[in-house]
């Protein structure tokens, strides 16, 4: 085809990717709006990218799985379903993919928020090998990711243990059927024997990347729930100091205030 390749296997796609300057095309919902010119590598015929599988440690979502397919799949965790159900409208969810959300490296991608908070890994493949990259090392800044020119995003590995935890999720957008996130929050929490065993919190706030601060989380993990509750204000204050927001669709002050309110609700819910 003119200005396009439509391989039917991953191996064929990787060979084309290595040999030619091509733009990977997944669902098209961002790429076509951006109006990028070039030669497209169409990935929709590759069955290997369109599967959801489960092993002992991970739920693996293929890069070509659409949000609609994920919502209908029994193995996709409820938190991920909730997040991607809020993406735009049915026509976008029918086309948009997990790989596309990552390839686009938007700092407002709803599926990527859940990948951040759950410590998901991104599997990248080239004809010479593969890499497993943590989400926060894959997304480098708004619109920039760590994908090499000869690689494709193959699948997202969601750690099963993270989705056994309790969660909070909330998205604040414009109207439901457009709903590019102004702010979205996801938090995971678990306790064992009266101690905090898992606490992670990630925020979309138009900040260049999703915000998550592991060092702050680690100050609460391992504490008794009572002690963690005592540390709540310190945690919130430290988190707030690190939210430095530039210009965005809505004001930075609003985004920061709402982010901290959502974080406070999360901590109140689980720590009391």
């Amino acid at each position, binding site marked *: 085809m003119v200005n*396009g390749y439509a391989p039917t296997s991953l191996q064929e796609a990787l060979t084309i990717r290595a040999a030619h300057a091509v733009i990977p*095309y997944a*669902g*098209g919902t961002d790429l076509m709006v951006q109006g990028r010119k070039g030669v497209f590598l169409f990935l929709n015929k590759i069955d290997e990218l369109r599967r959801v599988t489960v092993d002992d440690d991970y739920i693996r979502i293929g890069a070509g799985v659409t949000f609609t397919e994920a919502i209908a799949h029994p193995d996709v965790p409820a938190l991920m379903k909730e997040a991607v159900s809020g993406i*735009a409208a049915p*026509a976008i969810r029918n086309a948009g993919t997990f790989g596309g959300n990552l390839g686009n490296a938007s700092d407002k991608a709803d599926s990527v928020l859940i990948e951040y908070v759950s410590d998901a890994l991104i599997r990248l493949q080239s004809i010479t090998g593969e890499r497993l990259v943590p989400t926060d090392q894959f997304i480098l800044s708004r619109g920039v990711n760590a994908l090499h020119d000869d690689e494709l995003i193959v699948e997202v590995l969601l750690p099963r243990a993270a989705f056994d935890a309790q969660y909070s999720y909330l998205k604040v957008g414009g109207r439901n059927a457009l709903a590019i996130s102004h702010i979205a929050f996801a938090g995971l929490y678990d306790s064992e024997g009266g101690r905090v065993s898992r606490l992670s919190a990630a925020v979309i706030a138009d900040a260049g990347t999703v915000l998550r601060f592991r060092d702050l989380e680690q100050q609460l993990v391992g504490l008794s729930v009572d002690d963690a509750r005592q540390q709540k204000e310190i945690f919130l204050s430290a988190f707030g100091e690190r939210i430095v927001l530039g210009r965005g669709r809505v004001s930075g002050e609003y985004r920061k205030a709402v982010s901290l309110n959502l974080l406070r609700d999360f901590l109140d819910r689980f720590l009391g």
Partner: protein
Amino acid sequence: MEPIRFILNETDVTYDGDATARLLDVLRDTYHCKSVKCGCKEGECGACAVLLDGALVNACCVAMGAVDGRRVMTVEGYRETERFQVLSDAFAELTAVQCGFCIPGMVLAAESVLSHNPHPTEQEIRVGLSGNICRCTGYNAIVNAVKKASEEANGLW
């Protein structure tokens, strides 16, 4: 160079143009499917919605290379079906059409809702049509028309 082959409204077609061209533009300019409206070109208004392998998509956000080997349905094809007739009658009876610009997309969105769920609730219809913007009707008449079509379909969906 292999052309792009796909099925448009139940007819095999061959497209030998640019694989990065928008499906929206090719449907209107090459295949004269003028029911597919150009509203926003950003995937936000639903005026260009078509069925791709039976799933609702915005034609402005689909490149031609992605339709190779697939089935595309626009209202030019859908209007030949009994299902269309039921929807058309319901839309007419409840005055669900004013300027009409959004209606081809609305009708295909309705088909998408009903083909997955023949007896949707009002809320399910609203979710199904949520990506289709209408600036005239205030939506209620359209939602009621889809509900009416579902009740009078007699097993069509």
